[in-house]
């Protein structure tokens, strides 16, 4: 049995591994990607060289952390590995981990879920057409390998990350037709100016955004505000983006960027308490000052606790690593408090910026719009808003609506539709989204070929016996 299994090799997982290894713990890190970095510092495949990879100032801290992590001894890296299951046992946890070659159960005394976030899905007409992607997906291609996954992009959404993604596409040789912010510029400015001190403290990040805008200006890419995307059009694939003012823009890719929601499958599967994240939604896992959840021994850090960005994730990873060493008796309270002091101060400072960014990117207005009745809400099972609304007249419990409509029964396990459904339920019965919980989280958190699971029982017999 290992001391600590970390799920997620992004900044939070790396920072935790560094602290835990320094305290003498045996640590294994599992990540779906072959190499560490997470989505923020998604690395090129081994053996590839990408000139000026993540050269921007915003990436300096996560690159420094990555370099330290890759130099660590005593940490086992398991890339290309999905964690499909997480369950508590008598003396720790059992993870069901899956690689292309097989599945096995891993026993760990402590578990840290630092699984990051994913793009907030926003169902609108045409969002299931081939050629519509999340801005995060487009960025994963250009960041790691300078592959431009399309011909002519329109970026639409509310999140300022759009500027950075658009600039990365342009710098990788792609064509961006326009960057279209849903909200008016005045609202962004007002919300930023509401906290001028935060702007001063985090001036570096604004410099990066300004640099992105210069790249776009040089390339002649228009950046417009107050232009809500109404629909994506095309018969077999994306042909154009249509906006609320009636204008139509020809393109073959639409990248949507309305914000981010935490990956919460594993904490929910393990029974940890989660809370609905304000505005963008999704389930943030609750934790104490040492990042421990209410399932003793299960820790969380980074976007899993609520989306706050990479700098906060680094802080939370450090705190979790120290907290885990403390919980295993490798650090006494005084030593742990001392190690954590500077990180706690920094975390508090960064929280102001995260709040300001969330306010600027606020997708509340977008999410409150009711799309046409035939718009698909659950894309795995092709369930429309009209079909959902018909059921909401008699049933509003999320699992009941799921059972009645198949919404959330598909291969994505509800990741794409749960938020949209919970918002519809809230609108129907006048409650807050997530007030009545969500879908029951089930094994597996990721699809697993059945052949791989048939051999699991030998390892797990021991797990059941104890």
């Amino acid at each position, binding site marked *: 049995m290992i001391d600590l299994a970390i799920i997620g090799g992004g900044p939070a997982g790396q920072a935790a591994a560094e602290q835990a290894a320094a305290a003498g713990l045996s640590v294994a890190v599992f990540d779906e990607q072959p190499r560490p970095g997470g989505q923020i510092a998604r690395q090129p495949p081994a053996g590839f060289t990408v000139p000026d990879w993540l050269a921007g100032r915003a990436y300096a801290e996560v690159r420094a952390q990555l370099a330290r992590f890759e130099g660590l001894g005593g940490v086992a890296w398991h890339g290309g590995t999905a964690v499909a299951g997480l*369950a508590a046992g008598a003396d720790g946890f059992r993870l069901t981990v899956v690689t292309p070659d097989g599945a096995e159960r891993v026993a760990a005394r402590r578990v840290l879920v630092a699984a990051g976030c994913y793009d907030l899905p926003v169902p609108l007409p045409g969002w299931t057409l081939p050629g519509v992607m999340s801005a995060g997906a487009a960025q994963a291609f250009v960041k790691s390998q300078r592959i431009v996954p399309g011909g002519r992009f329109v970026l639409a959404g509310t999140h300022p990350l759009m500027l950075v993604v658009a600039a990365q596409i342009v710098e990788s040789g792609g064509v961006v037709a326009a960057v279209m912010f849903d909200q008016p510029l005045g609202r962004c400015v007002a919300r930023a100016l509401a906290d001028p001190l935060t702007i001063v403290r985090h001036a570096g990040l604004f410099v990066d955004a300004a640099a992105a805008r210069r790249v776009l200006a040089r390339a002649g890419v228009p950046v417009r505000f107050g232009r809500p995307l109404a629909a994506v059009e095309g018969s077999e694939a994306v042909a154009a983006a249509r906006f609320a003012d009636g204008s139509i823009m020809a393109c073959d890719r639409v990248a949507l960027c309305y914000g981010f929601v935490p990956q919460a499958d594993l904490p929910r599967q393990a029974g940890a308490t989660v809370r609905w994240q304000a505005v963008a939604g999704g389930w943030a896992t609750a934790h104490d000052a040492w990042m421990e959840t209410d399932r003793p021994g299960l820790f969380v850090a980074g976007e899993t606790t609520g989306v706050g960005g990479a700098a906060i994730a680094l802080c939370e990873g450090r705190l979790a690593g120290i907290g885990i060493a403390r919980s295993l008796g490798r650090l006494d309270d005084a030593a742990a408090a001392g190690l954590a002091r500077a990180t706690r101060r920094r975390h508090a400072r960064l929280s102001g910026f995260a709040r300001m960014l969330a306010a600027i990117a606020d997708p509340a207005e977008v999410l409150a719009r009711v799309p046409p009745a035939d718009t698909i809400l659950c894309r795995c099972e092709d369930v429309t808003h009209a079909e959902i609304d018909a059921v909401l007249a008699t049933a509003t*419990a999320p699992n009941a609506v799921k059972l009645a409509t198949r919404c959330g029964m598909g291969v994505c396990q509800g990741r794409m539709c749960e938020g949209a459904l919970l918002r519809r339920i809230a609108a129907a019965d006048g409650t807050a989204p997530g007030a009545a919980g969500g879908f029951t989280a089930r*094994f597996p958190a990721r699809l*697993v070929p059945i*052949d791989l699971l048939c051999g699991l*029982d030998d390892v797990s017999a021991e797990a059941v016996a104890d």
Partner: protein
Amino acid sequence: MLIVEAAHANAGASGQNAGSLHFQIERRFLEQGEAKAAEAAAITGLSRMAVDDWRGLEQALGADLHVHMHGGLMVAETADEVAMLERKAARERAAGLSAELVDGAELRRIAPYLSERVIAANHMADEGHADPRAVTPAFVAAARAAGAVLAERTRVTAIARRAGGFAVTLAGAGAGTVQADQLLIAAGVWSAGVGALANVHLPLFPVALQMNVTERVAPFLPHLIQHVGRRLSMKQAHAGNVLIGGGWPSRMAAGDGRFDLSRRPELLAPSLAGNLAVATAVLPHVGGLNLIRSWTGTTAITADQYPLVGAVPCAPGLFVAAGGSAFTLGPTFARLIAAQMAGGGAAAEAKAALAIAAPARFDHLNSFMGG
């Protein structure tokens, strides 16, 4: 008529079961020796009625229930298992249910998807599956149309037995006290707890099972597949997903000296691997499909494994319908218990049909309950 539901209609086993329509004598009755197998043949009388009930159910309820009755195969991999199938089929034929033993070229013709390890099967033409997602809502709509009121998110907190009826105290969305001439407890795994409120033992034992479902794929499996010697039930649902189960246990939470039915049972890895291993041994094609969900659910069984359906003799006016097999046999239980409760000419016949499930066989347990 008032239907009281603690959560929402279809929230429990009625919506969580895998939707098999199985009419062959179940493996659980065959693995306990010949005496039990002979006795269990009595349940085929109910199965025979259930075949007719399911054939007419979509029309009766006016709803598409995705009823597929394209046949079921109970497969065997060894000579001993084939012998079990032969004895089982003979019993079923004697009880008026037709199961035929198929093997060799005929078996491959009927079911080309089966692995070479399968050497024979009992084939029953009426077996198949229906959609639990659709069946309960259709019954709810029909009950409402007939004048019944459904009170969801409403719990029974007290039952007082009065001369000629019951006073039932309700909490939650439909809070209040209602007077009822007759009371039917059909609360699945929670039935014993409701019975306790009426001061009767309903000897039901909760069991937690787990099931698995694959991604949706094009139709390739028209039959319900069961195994005579191993735990397996497998079918391809209307939507294209393959459902894999067959009685593999999950683990109930426990506390306070009893099983805690309010907590979700825990998935057991050996059950997961064991179930999927049997499935792929019988049907290799499913090994290449992706598992998208495994889920747990609870049902209740009795000491002799037969259902518990009928009047509770020590408490006049009190009825129960619980104890398992209640998807396949549910519509039949409902029809017969309604006839019994309505009284009149059909009541005696309904009581006779439910004889094997009659609560009277356990009434000695209530001989110290003080009425």
